[in-house]
């Protein structure tokens, strides 16, 4: 069923009984052209673009829980393309362009809201670094705007501009950045892929990767063996565990990141703001809750929950930036397990096994990448060669000395 104003009217007059399920719940077939492991945003987007851009529809997405139960439904929903390095920037800009047309493409309201993203700076050195980043963005054709203190103050007078340690001296703004309703992204891609014939199989955990003569022939799952010609891994925080089934050791550690929502407030903050001092970022959802987060907990973890020390740390950073937050109560907090790579940048590449493909290492920034990640991974799966925007995101880049290290921290995943 196509969603439209007319369909809402028609069903409104028919006591809302005409709505049908947004996707099917099929039993797995014996064999698929392509199997994708992981029904998160990236896996579902890959299936959609495989069907839409490459006409490959005999595809299954295998998800061990329910779709949206992973990071795609746990993130703080920020999208942006304000990257510095040439290996990253064109890819994230492609993603932002895809976000801009996503709702029409999927016929699904993902609440894409280009409310702007501002990164604050507190010192002259930080300002210079942001000027450099802004210039790099503009050279790539991406919008970037430097705001001085007065401008930021006129937009958000409630921030602590004269904090003794971290005075706010301005910010770098990308107006086309913003937020997207994260669950709707999973649902929208699932519905669109399903409509083109993709089987989305939930409650189906991949437990083994079967190989014959050095090629993948299929996967063992909690619903039995399923054969395939090509296998794509998009298991986010569980990438290492899935890759291990094919004897691959990845340049990845799994870490937990927490997110928080406050009680609902009246409209207060109409953009996304990132504190330059304590890695704190905040926006306000349409329901009124403040959505915010900070640093990762800093230790390897497969538990989707974090520690109180970070809860406190994030609150402190938030109050340093917006003192009024001290009066606001936390409503909920949760954690997600992310695949932190050795340079903080992702991997979309072939593997040493001929028909096994890898999409991993998204760290805490993979939500904004969802459309482009799906688009480029589908390209790789269909054509066997990387999309032009992902030629730097190779699995063997560390061995060759071509890390894409935006922050310059080196191979220390808990610092990226």
């Amino acid at each position, binding site marked *: 069923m196509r969603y439209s104003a007319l369909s809402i009217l028609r069903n409104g007059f028919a006591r809302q009984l005409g709505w049908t399920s947004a996707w099917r719940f099929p039993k797995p077939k014996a064999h698929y052209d392509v199997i994708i492991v992981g029904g998160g945003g990236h896996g579902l987007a890959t299936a959609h673009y495989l069907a839409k851009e490459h006409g490959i529809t005999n595809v299954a997405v295998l998800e061990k829980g329910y779709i949206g139960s992973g990071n795609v439904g746990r993130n703080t929903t920020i999208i942006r393309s304000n990257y510095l390095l040439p290996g990253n920037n064109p890819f994230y800009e492609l993603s932002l362009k895809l976000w801009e047309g996503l709702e029409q493409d999927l016929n699904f309201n993902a609440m894409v809201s280009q409310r702007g993203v501002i990164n604050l700076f507190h010192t002259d050195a930080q300002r210079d670094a942001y000027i450099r980043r802004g210039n790099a963005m503009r050279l790539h054709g991406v919008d970037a705007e430097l705001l001085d203190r007065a401008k930021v103050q006129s937009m958000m007078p409630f921030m602590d501009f004269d904090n003794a340690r971290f005075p706010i001296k301005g910010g770098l703004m990308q107006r086309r950045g913003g937020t997207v309703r994260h669950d709707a992204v999973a649902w929208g891609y699932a519905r669109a892929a399903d409509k083109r014939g993709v089987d989305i199989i939930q409650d189906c955990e991949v437990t083994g990767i079967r190989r014959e003569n050095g090629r993948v022939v299929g996967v063992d799952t909690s619903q039995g063996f399923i054969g395939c010609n090509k296998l794509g891994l998009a298991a986010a925080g569980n990438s*290492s*565990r899935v890759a*291990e089934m094919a004897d691959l*050791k*990845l*340049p*990845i*550690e*799994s870490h937990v990141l927490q997110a928080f929502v406050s009680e609902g407030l009246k409209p207060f903050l109409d953009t996304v703001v990132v504190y330059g001092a304590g890695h704190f970022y905040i926006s306000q959802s349409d329901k009124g809750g403040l959505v915010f987060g900070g640093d990762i907990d*800093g*230790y*390897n*973890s*497969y*538990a989707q929950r974090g*520690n*109180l*020390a970070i809860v406190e740390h994030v609150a402190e950073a938030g109050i340093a930036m917006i003192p009024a937050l001290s009066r606001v109560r936390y409503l909920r907090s949760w954690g997600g397990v992310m695949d932190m790579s*050795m340079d903080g940048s992702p991997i979309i590449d072939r593997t040493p096994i001929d028909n096994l493909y890898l999409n991993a290492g998204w760290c805490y920034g993979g939500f904004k990448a969802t459309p482009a990640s799906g688009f480029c991974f589908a390209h790789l799966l269909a054509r066997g060669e990387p999309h032009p925007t992902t030629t730097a995101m190779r699995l063997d880049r*560390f*061995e060759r000395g071509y890390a894409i290290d935006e922050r310059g921290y080196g*191979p*220390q*995943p*808990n610092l990226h």
Partner: protein
Amino acid sequence: MASLITCPHCGQRPKEEFAIKGAALARPAPDAPQGEWYDYVFLRTNPRGRYEEYWHHVSGCRRWLVVTRDTASHAVEDCRDAAERAPT
């Protein structure tokens, strides 16, 4: 994770006193082949379960420790001085 960690030198101390460095891997010999160094610096087994990692008791004795911890339950099994660690 447990809020209290038993440092072999300082006894039970709050977790916040420690900084976690990450995987406690055995360092290859300086002249080991490139491949071995690549593996050591960049690749991780990243297990779900028992894991050995280097912790620094920053706000205590300032010794480097090896903590054995479960990455799914976060339970801490063991904590000893890095110098006493059996060579692997």
